[in-house]
């Protein structure tokens, strides 16, 4: 009988997270004066699903909390309670606690019951204890004799049993009373017998809310056999534990019953039924969320992406062969070209699967801004644009922290207090704008505020103090770069919001790790504009293939400034042994790629070499290569999946001829070169 419910846990956590996120989004949008009925309903449904799921899995405290939340929502819905700020705040806080404790439950297998109890108490402030899970519902007096109802449900045509929100239905029935029999042909109808103390009307109402008014009929039911004998469900196990279900004869709480029922539901049904059940559940959730989406494991997507990457390579090999053999056959040529076109389209389509709209990230910001503004006593209006812009899922995840940090900074350091703003002749409510746009094959995410802007004087002073090589004659752009220095802060006081100086350097590092870069513009008194430029996806790189010492390497195209044929006089060796290249009026360090990569010990010859100027966030250097082979998009493969990380190498890719080429990590090479010349200086001294 014992069915291991723990295997449903991952699904539970995943769903709970989604429901909570949904609740938050809707709660934030709620207008206190005229709450939108549809939104309320949606919040209610989300809370209800979490409740149902937690009850099913025996997480009683969670379901109690969610039940209280439902109660409050119900009162809002019935216009008995106005969703004022404090109510919304409490509900948002409740979402946090549930999420936090859910995470604890997931990681440690236990949760902080005290936190949930405290929350429960707080929730009790709004709304009478009526309908509490602890007490038997007070609407019908407890003395009310239990009755049996027959509930008939018409299954949605074409979907059958899978079209029903079964998990919710079970949870609902569990909270109403005890389910005694369930029969269904799986296609057209479902028939249940429910033993309950509830009045027929309230049963009807609950089920109508859940399933719609059309398809549910509730009628009184008189069992054909003796009143006391429970109906044996088809294929039921011996009712040895039947006493445990005696809800009203014993003092067992409803919560327990719900749990037991949950178990019983899995326990007494055959494996087939169970499978249908789970599938049904998944199907319904999908229907509720978005009819046209399905949840797929990322690993499967990555595998698909890999396979398509392979196909692209295979296709280019085929193409090469066909071209080399100067295929006389026009049909062969056409076919190869056709396969090529289709392969590229397939690749684009598969790449697109990994793309998610920026909304999934932007939607987290209103909450952050709201909470923070409240704490800081500031008034801010957040406006997000371009939420439909799509970006690789992995990048969106990795962008969350940097963007949250930047928004937090804008609020804390940028936007002034209302009085200050008024004094400066600005509207008291500050503005923060998030914007995502497609630009030149990449995505640009901008964070704009109309706050005070960066304080040039203060930043310069701090930079001087910290010996960062600042001087008064620096351009604004150069000065702004100091904020990205590790540990840099201009905040006079350290708060838990910002000012500890950890952050901007991490932001910059994270963005660069994603192959992007960050630009800052700021005007005193007018605000700050931060732009993050990112490639569309992590999986593909626009690269220049070059030949160095007989090997092919890929240099990220975005880092290449220019290429030229160097003349001997342009290259100077300085006393440390390091070499510099004169490019117009600047001397740029020469990256001795061949030595750094251990390709050859002789210094790169200038004769017949091509110089490439690379630019990593303003740090420029020259790379000597033997040949430029061409520009191409390459699929980035990890070296680390089967080998260790190699300094100076960002990854690898497979070329059209099936060979592996390494992608150079220019930033790491710059560091290596710097380290190498330091060693030389030390050695010379």
């Amino acid at each position, binding site marked *: 009988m014992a069915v291991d419910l723990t295997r449903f846990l991952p699904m539970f956590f995943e769903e709970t997270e989604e429901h909570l996120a949904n609740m938050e989004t809707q709660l934030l949008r709620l207008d206190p004066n005229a709450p939108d009925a549809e939104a309320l309903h949606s919040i209610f449904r989300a809370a209800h699903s979490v409740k149902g799921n937690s009850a099913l899995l025996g997480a009683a405290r969670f379901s109690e909390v969610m039940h209280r939340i439902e109660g409050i929502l119900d009162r809002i819905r019935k216009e008995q309670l106005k969703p004022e700020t404090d109510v919304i705040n409490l509900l948002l806080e409740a979402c946090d606690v549930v999420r936090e404790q859910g995470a604890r439950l997931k990681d440690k297998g236990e949760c902080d019951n005290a936190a949930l109890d405290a929350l429960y108490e707080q929730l009790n402030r709004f709304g009478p204890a009526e309908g509490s899970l602890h007490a038997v519902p007070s609407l019908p007096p407890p003395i009310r004799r239990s009755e049996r109802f027959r509930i008939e449900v018409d299954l949605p045509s074409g979907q059958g049993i899978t079209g029903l929100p079964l998990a919710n239905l079970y949870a609902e029935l569990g909270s109403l009373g005890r389910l005694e029999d369930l029969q269904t042909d799986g296609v057209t109808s479902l028939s249940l017998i429910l033993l309950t103390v509830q009045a027929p009307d309230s049963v009807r109402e609950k089920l109508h809310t859940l399933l719609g008014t059309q398809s549910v009929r509730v009628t009184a039911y008189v069992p054909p056999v003796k009143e006391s004998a429970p109906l044996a469900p088809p294929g039921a196990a011996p009712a040895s534990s039947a006493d445990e279900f005696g809800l009203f004869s014993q003092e067992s709480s409803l919560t327990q019953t719900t749990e037991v029922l949950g178990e019983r539901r899995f326990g007494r049904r055959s494996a087939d039924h169970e499978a249908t059940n789970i599938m049904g559940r998944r199907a319904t959730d999908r229907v509720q969320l978005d009819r046209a989406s399905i949840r797929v494991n990322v690993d499967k997507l990555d595998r698909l992406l*890999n*396979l398509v*990457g*392979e196909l692209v*390579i295979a296709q280019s090999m085929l193409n090469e062969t066909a071209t080399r053999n100067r295929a006389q056959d026009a049909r062969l040529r056409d076919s190869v070209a056709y396969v090529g076109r289709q392969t590229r389209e397939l690749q684009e389509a598969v790449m697109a699967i990994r793309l998610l709209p920026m909304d999934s990230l932007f939607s987290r910001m209103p909450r952050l801004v709201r909470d923070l503004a409240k704490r800081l006593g500031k008034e801010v209006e957040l406006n997000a644009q371009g939420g439909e812009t799509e970006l690789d899922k992995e990048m969106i995840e990795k962008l969350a922290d940097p963007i949250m940090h930047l928004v937090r900074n804008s609020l804390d350091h940028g936007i002034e207090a209302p009085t200050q703003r008024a004094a400066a002749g600005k509207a008291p409510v500050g503005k923060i704008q998030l914007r995502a746009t497609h630009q030149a094959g990449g995505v640009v995410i901008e964070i704009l505020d109309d706050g005070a802007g960066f304080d040039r004087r203060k930043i310069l002073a701090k930079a001087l103090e910290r010996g960062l090589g600042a001087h008064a004659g620096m351009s604004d752009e150069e000065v702004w770069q100091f904020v990205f220095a590790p540990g840099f802060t201009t905040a006079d006081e350290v708060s838990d919001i910002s000012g500890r100086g950890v952050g901007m350097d991490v932001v910059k590092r994270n963005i660069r790790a994603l192959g992007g870069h960050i630009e800052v513009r700021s005007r005193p008194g007018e605000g700050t504009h931060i732009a993050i430029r990112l490639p569309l996806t992590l999986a593909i790189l626009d690269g220049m293939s070059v030949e160095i010492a007989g*090997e*092919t390497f890929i240099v990220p195209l975005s880092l290449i400034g220019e290429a030229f044929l160097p003349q001997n006089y342009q290259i100077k060796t300085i006393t440390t042994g390091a070499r510099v290249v004169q490019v117009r009026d600047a001397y740029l360090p020469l990256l001795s790629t061949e030595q*750094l*990569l*251990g*390709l050859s010990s002789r210094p790169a010859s200038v004769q017949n070499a091509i110089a490439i100027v690379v630019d990593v966030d303003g740090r420029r250097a020259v790379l000597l290569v033997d040949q430029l082979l061409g520009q191409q998009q390459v699929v980035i*493969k*990890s*070296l*680390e*999946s*089967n*080998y*260790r*990380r*190699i*300094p*100076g*190498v960002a990854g*690898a890719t*497979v070329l059209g001829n*099936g*060979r*592996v*080429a*390494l992608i150079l990590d220019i930033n790491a090479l710059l560091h290596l070169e710097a380290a190498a010349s330091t060693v030389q200086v030390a050695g010379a001294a």
Partner: protein
Amino acid sequence: MQDFSLKPAPSNAQPAALREFLTFRLGHEDYAIDILTVQEIRMFESVTKLPTTPDYIKGVINLRGVIAPVIDLRVKFGFENADYGPFTVLVVLRVREKLAAIVVDAVADVVGLTAEQIKPAPELSITLNIEYVMGLGTRGEQMLILLDIEKLITSRELGIFEEESQATH
């Protein structure tokens, strides 16, 4: 050969317990590794060199889209001749979910060895650390050095995989 079971037989059935090994030559010595670690055998192909790696790491190859390192055990073991001839092949191994290929002079055979046929290795006479030798197998006149290839490939000495603790970066 068809009599050999692919699965290792239960240990209580000692006399019949056959383990299958892939034998190959490295220099003048015959080696054998557990067949279950072998994913495929490929012709030697040109590799892409990796910078700043020990000389026994020949580089990386493309295994249907997966980049895998190529290790020349002959170099690692200090053999004089590490040439690439027509019989030089790559044995692709799957060790703890990672792929790596080793260069060997020639693949000979798949042999089944019973526990009796495997003798402990003496502490001397072999060009590599005894730690990576499971034992010596005998087949007729032939002596096979049974390599604990999993231990060798994942060893810190070879340094192919980053240690677990370094995984976070």
